[in-house]
């Protein structure tokens, strides 16, 4: 089975909060780039499916040169090879054009199964899997907490607000996974060493047959008009329980008309 797992590099969530509130431009270079943590579950699931069914796992990342660090991490976990879609023209792409560029790359790579994380921790749009499925004309099986492949049949349990749905389709398909699905492995020392020798194919937009006028900031169909630091939450009142903590909490709730 030919599995492509999409991995995004995002600013480290832990350092993110260090952004100064008066900093109006968002400088991604100022913070460490890490693997979108939800994509580690996608890599893990891809590796498990490969272990069960055979085949190959290819990592696909779209991002600047710096994103190679992210690719190495996924390779160190055990993926076989990687494709790095990188081109200055892609900078500033919105979700629509990102999905276009990635779909073009996926067509070039070829796949039986594409696996994504449920969302990125930076933009958090959670739309990419659905957009890729639409563009590739492939079934969409998203938010899986369980994936089962049987020959060309695929079934997932999709988490919902009230429980889960059982969703079925046939390969090739696009899947996204939630963090309930598995426990991602840590790269071993051997894995890290092996990752250095694994092939990473650099793909420019021309190589992926991506039309330059349809990607990047200028082509984005969604536009940020203004960007401001939100006013910080007013500091709250913190009291120590001296045997009357419940009463004090009730006073507060009453003052806000909740009781």
């Amino acid at each position: 089975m030919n599995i492509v797992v999409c991995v995004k590099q995002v600013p480290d969530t832990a350092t993110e909060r260090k952004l100064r509130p008066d900093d109006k431009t968002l400088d991604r270079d100022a913070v460490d780039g890490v693997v979108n943590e939800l994509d580690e579950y996608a890599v893990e699931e891809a590796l498990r499916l490969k272990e069960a069914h055979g085949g190959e796992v290819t990592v696909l990342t779209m991002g600047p040169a710096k994103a190679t660090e992210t690719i190495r991490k996924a390779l160190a976990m055990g993926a076989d090879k990687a494709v790095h879609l990188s081109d200055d023209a892609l900078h500033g792409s919105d979700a629509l054009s990102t999905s276009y560029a990635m779909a073009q790359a996926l067509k070039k790579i070829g796949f039986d199964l594409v696996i994504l994380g449920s969302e990125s921790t930076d933009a958090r749009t959670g739309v990419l899997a659905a957009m890729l499925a639409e563009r590739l004309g492939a079934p969409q099986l998203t938010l899986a907490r369980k994936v089962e492949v049987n020959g060309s049949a695929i079934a997932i349990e999709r988490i919902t607000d009230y429980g889960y749905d059982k969703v079925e389709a046939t390969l090739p398909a696009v899947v996204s996974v939630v963090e309930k699905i598995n426990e991602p492995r840590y790269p071993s020392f051997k894995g890290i060493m092996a990752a250095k020798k694994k092939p990473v194919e650099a793909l420019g937009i021309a190589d992926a047959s991506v039309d330059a006028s349809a990607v990047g900031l200028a082509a984005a169909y969604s536009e940020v008009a203004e960007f401001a630091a939100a006013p910080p939450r007013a500091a709250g009142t913190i009291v120590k329980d001296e045997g009357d903590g419940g009463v004090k909490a009730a006073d507060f709730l009453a003052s806000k008309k909740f009781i």
Partner: protein
Amino acid sequence: MSDVLVLVGHLAGPVGKASLELLTLARRLGNPVAVCAGTLDERAVETLGRYGARRVHVIESDDVREYPVAWVRALADLAADTRPVAVLTESTPDGRETAARLAVRLDSGVLTDVVDIQDGPDGPVATQWAFAAGYTVTSRVVGGIPIIAVKSNAAVPEEAPATPAVTRSPLVLDEADRRTRVVSREPRESTGRPQLTEADIVVSGGRGLGGAEQFELIERLADALGGAVGASRAAVDAGWYAHTHQVGQTGVTVSPQLYIAVGISGAIQHRAGMQTSKTIVAVNKDAEAPIFELADYGVVGDLFEVVPQLLDEVARRRA
């Protein structure tokens, strides 16, 4: 005025609060057209009209249950017909994914997790929160028909009575629409409590509870306040409460009037799902717990002392 398509979805019972919020926002942009499927009774039409729907469009097919992707076809057909100024969906997983595919099909920009919409000279202007609510972003769609996925509680439903016209269209699916099939759904559990995403008050418990039985304390507080029950991932992973109640990055995002965090440390992933709550109250025995950075009111103390006392107080004041 032009139409604004509002995806209400498959109706099985009463119209949800989120749909009324969407209609309220849609009125700022044009004439709301409520798009639904399923059993549409007079009461539903009346409710949709009361909140401003000028037209209720019924997709005459139950196939959207089995093939949710079919909503995309239904909305795309309607959009081709009416050239709406915007399409609004809920920013739930289902709503976002429908919006996403529709965006590709209509070659239009999409905005997700929108918390407010105003009309502007060049079309809708949306407000989003970025980076754990550290930034407020106003954004616009500059290509195609704006497709906007709106978070729950983005607006307070306001009545604007209209008598909607009811229109209907069949839905004819082709092979591509049938590629992904929902074969079964675990039935909605009925707790008698409000739905987590829609609740005005959410009371959540974390690892500090120490076990499944102790969650009864959280349920009692939720019931006393008329709220919904949430849980941290630690509590869910320990098997103390169902995953459908997980609040956070990979759980549900809530934005209630009041959020009470009990025995929850306030990890960044938890905060991602609740920090836009209007008022936040925390009970934690660790004064250094990060949840206190967010709290409007915090009690540093043992939850097994504080919460029972709070329950007694609520009961006493209500009596």
